[in-house]
């Protein structure tokens, strides 16, 4: 299953809910303001790092770059472009967007 999060973890609880519900082997894609969570020094960084034991975390590269965060991405987080976004959606049978 692919989980998609688009809200900042320091403004909404959608990332927290997502990580609570995502089961082992699932993928989590961070887009828009959610990408801040996958940056070094962010409050959510520890949660993301802990989650990587069971989940593959992806972040949308163009959203990182637009926020000046491309140089701060946490190790282990895979950056994808829009094509990669589409691939993730097609590779997983179901998607849940944590709006």
């Amino acid at each position, binding site marked *: 299953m692919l989980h998609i999060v*688009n*809200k*900042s973890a*320091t*403004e909404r609880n959608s990332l927290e809910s997502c990580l609570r519900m995502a089961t082992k082997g699932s993928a989590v894609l961070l887009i*828009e*303001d959610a990408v*801040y969570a996958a*940056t*070094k*020094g*962010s*409050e959510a*960084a520890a949660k993301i790092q802990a989650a990587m034991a069971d989940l593959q975390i992806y972040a949308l*590269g*163009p*959203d990182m*770059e*637009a*926020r*000046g*965060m*491309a*140089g*701060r991405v946490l190790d282990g987080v895979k950056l994808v*472009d829009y094509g990669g976004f589409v691939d993730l959606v097609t590779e997983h049978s179901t998607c849940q967007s944590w709006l």
Partner: protein
Amino acid sequence: MSDMMDDMEGGEGVVKKFMFVNRKAPHGTIYALEGLEVVLISAAFDQDVSMVFTDDGVYELIKGVNTKGIEVKDFSKTYRALEGYDIEKLYVEKASMDARGLSEGDLIVDVTVLDSAEMASLMAEQDVVISF
């Protein structure tokens, strides 16, 4: 009374302290850009303007932005133009920067870093507070 008439007719004399509070990350919502636009408009009224960045608002001032990939305007450079409009009071809350692993060197403009108590008293002394 005559003072009041002067104020109304000439537009001189009444300078209020305006604070614009920015608490949202850029791009994800329109708040950051709209807040910046309003501050630029306010410059035309010769008021005592302060701009405050707290919570996710500190992300508005990050340098090294490239918005080509998401095809939206990069307005981060506009913060550097504020000085030209005599808007020079930019304040950032230290706790908000710390929580995001950021420091002054990561920001696109010179700011004054305040602790939360200093920010609170600055807010308390304003005539008008507008939030974005």
